[in-house]
């Protein structure tokens, strides 16, 4: 249905950003907060109204805001589509975003740059909504770049600290590599399919080769934005930004853009079976890889950062095996509980006056009851313990991976096809192990921070945060619980009012069917049993190691697994590897280019060489211009004589 109000959703935060950024410095604080909060709350209400409208038999709302540009057969509109997928995402972005804005009022109140902060935050919301709602790839790319920009601005928010500024640069550069792939993907789709409109791409018959190439290039963009191997390295460093930013951008919304993009272009990805395998495998490796690293990190935000990377890997498993609804379901539930975890970590850091090291926490449950309880709820949710939301969404992904038929008729070459029927169960096994590790490191984090005795710095008295920070925590914890309603298997609630709201049922028809068809009917009970077992195993391992012993649990592990643990604590030396293999050769190449090409060739030969040649010629020519008019006249006369000789005598 064509409507005329959809543009308000991304426009209002943009206006808010303009107000905060341009005049925020001179506004009274209260007004600034009101503008910043209202410009997120209003789109949320608009989205809510639209979302209710979707239930009334409307498939999607669409608005053509304006024709952005046309060139030849290329036509790019600023147009928005609000369907069940993008609608739900809009609600998550604005809803969680609003809560984090509220929380930020408490968290950033004393920062002198608070107005700048809220301008960036609003700008981010606007960009993210453009990304989610854009009805063509170019509009999506605008949002895609916009969130990257805001991410850069917010990671380097405290830019006077060189380390934080360089973390921002790292995020920007790494994302740029991915965005390059994304752009190439758009180019491929435009040149081969003649359109950048998502709905048209999703309804066209795409030749296999085109689909593979475009999907792969777009997926490179997704690995950058969604922090997957090999481009995940920026996300842990992104924790240099203020903690609410980590919650909003680097956990709940922006980093899920890649998953959203794959789900949005489900038809394209289904037409590219090889790329689906790549997506699923990359997701699996990322999930296990960063879960391993997370077990040995001591910075509470780093633990959560690697946890985010790992959970994003799970989402990519979901979309990679063709279960787009499972991947996006985990995206939504993850937004709730990971935002809650990050904000809880922020409250802890706030209460400890900037202490982020788990080794210097402990026993905080006495001092911060609200933070502790909400953190506990979110931890239960992420570890996948029945019946919270993470249990359903994560297990849905793994069950779909086990039963998937997406790889059963895989076409690797245009000629023949091959079956990778063993890949699904393998992904299931590795994913389950990653789920175990998730449970392990999250409980470790919880026990080290909140149980045992206080190990923090002397003289710091941990205190509970003000209500403006704890209320969002409680709401998010509540959402982390209520998210289970989305994740209930339809067979459990068949025939009840809840059936309509389960995500699988709700998004029916939004996503393309995987190549081999959807998995056949399977009983969720066995998978749930295993998932529950895995979750509790992780808890049990963590409990025995850390609940009583506290830090000595780490020492015990280090004694047993010395080198392995040291490697994990050093993030498996990936940064060092990249430094050796990519950064330093690039550096050397750049240095060589600077010295040889720039300094010698361009500066020496062209920039300075041409002028000095001209100067030399001019010095020669100046001899002729000595100001003696008579000599000029003599030369002129000689010239005329010569010309006359040529034209009159010779011809």
């Amino acid at each position: 249905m064509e409507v005329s109000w959809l543009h308000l959703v991304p426009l209002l935060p943009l206006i808010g950003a303009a107000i905060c950024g341009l005049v925020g410095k001179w506004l009274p604080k209260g007004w600034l907060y009101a503008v910043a909060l209202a410009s997120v709350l209003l789109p949320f209400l608009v989205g809510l109204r639209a979302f209710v409208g979707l239930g009334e038999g409307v498939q999607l709302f669409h608005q053509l805001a304006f024709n952005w540009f046309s060139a030849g057969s290329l036509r790019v509109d600023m147009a928005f589509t609000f369907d069940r997928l993008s609608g739900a995402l809009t609600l998550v972005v604005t809803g969680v975003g609003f809560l984090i804005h509220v929380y930020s009022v408490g968290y950033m109140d004393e920062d002198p740059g608070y107005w700048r902060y809220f301008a960036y935050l609003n700008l981010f919301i606007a960009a993210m909504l453009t990304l989610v709602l854009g009805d063509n790839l170019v509009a999506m790319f605008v949002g895609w770049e916009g969130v990257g920009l805001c991410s850069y601005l917010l990671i380097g928010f405290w830019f006077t600290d060189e380390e934080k500024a360089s973390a921002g640069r790292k995020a920007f550069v790494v994302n740029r590599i991915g965005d390059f792939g994304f752009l190439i993907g758009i180019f491929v789709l435009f040149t081969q399919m003649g359109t950048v409109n998502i709905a048209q791409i999703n309804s066209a018959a795409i030749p296999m080769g085109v689909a593979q190439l475009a999907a792969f290039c777009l997926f490179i963009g997704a690995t950058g934005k969604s922090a997957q191997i090999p481009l995940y390295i920026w996300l842990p460093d992104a924790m240099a930004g203020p903690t609410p930013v980590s919650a909003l951008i680097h956990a709940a919304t922006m980093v899920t853009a890649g998953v959203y993009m794959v789900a949005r272009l489900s038809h394209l990805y289904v037409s590219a079976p090889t790329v689906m395998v790549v997506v699923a495998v990359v997701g699996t490796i990322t999930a296990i890889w960063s879960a391993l690293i997370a077990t040995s990190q001591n910075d509470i935000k780093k633990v959560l950062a690697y946890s985010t990377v790992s959970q994003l890997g799970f989402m990519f498993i979901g979309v990679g095996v063709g279960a787009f609804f499972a991947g996006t379901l985990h995206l939504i539930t993850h937004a709730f509980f990971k935002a809650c975890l990050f904000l809880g970590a922020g409250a802890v850091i706030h209460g400890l006056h900037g202490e982020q090291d788990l080794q210097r926490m402990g026993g905080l449950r006495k001092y911060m009851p609200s933070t502790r309880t909400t953190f506990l709820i979110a931890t239960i949710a992420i570890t996948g313990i029945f019946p919270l939301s993470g249990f359903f969404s994560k297990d849905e992904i793994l069950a779909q991976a086990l039963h998937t038929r997406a790889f059963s008729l895989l076409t690797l070459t245009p000629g023949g096809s091959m079956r990778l029927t063993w890949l699904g169960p393998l992904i299931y096994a590795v994913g389950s192990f990653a789920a175990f590790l998730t449970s392990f490191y999250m409980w470790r984090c919880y026990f080290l921070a909140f149980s045992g005795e206080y190990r923090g710095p002397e003289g710091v008295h941990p205190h509970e945060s003000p209500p403006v920070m704890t209320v969002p925590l409680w709401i998010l914890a509540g959402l982390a619980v209520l998210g289970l309603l989305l994740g209930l298997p339809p067979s459990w609630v068949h025939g009840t009012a809840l059936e309509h709201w389960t995500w699988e049922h709700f998004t029916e028809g939004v996503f393309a069917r995987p190549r081999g068809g959807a998995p056949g009917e399977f009983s969720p009970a066995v998978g749930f049993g295993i998932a529950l077992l895995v979750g509790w195993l992780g808890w049990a391992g963590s409990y025995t190691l850390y609940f009583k012993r506290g830090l000595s649990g780490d020492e015990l592990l280090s004694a047993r697994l010395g080198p392995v643990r040291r490697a994990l604590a050093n993030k498996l030396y990936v940064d060092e590897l990249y430094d050796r293999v990519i950064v330093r050769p690039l550096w050397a190449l750049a240095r060589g280019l600077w010295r040889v090409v720039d300094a010698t060739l361009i500066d020496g030969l062209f920039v300075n060489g041409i002028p000095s040649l001209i100067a030399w010629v001019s010095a020669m020519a100046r001899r002729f211009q000595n100001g003696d008019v008579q000599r000029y006249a003599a030369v002129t006369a000689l010239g005329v004589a010569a010309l006359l000789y040529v034209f009159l005598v010779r011809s």
Partner: protein
Amino acid sequence: MDFFHAHQAQHYLVLGALLFALGAAGVVLRRNAIIVLMSIELMLNAVNLTFLAFARFPLVPNSPMGSFLSGHAAVFFVIATAAAEAAVGLAIIIAVFRSRTSVNVDEFDTLKL
């Protein structure tokens, strides 16, 4: 046919060329600005003579492009221009002489950079 009575253009043209060369040599070689000016007059009059010669002995008889009067008209223009030029030139020489107390063109080399 006697050389002096043969009404032919080349006599006048040779004279004009000699006068012109004489004037040009004066312009290039002499140092006194007034002499240079006079030499220019000489060149102009050489041109005048050439104009008149061609007016009297047209290269293309009965040319449809105009009568012999066009050569005369050009000469009148040159005479008028030469008069103006002489006035301006002498004025400049006087002005320069006032500031430099010299009419030697070798010393007037401020045109260069």
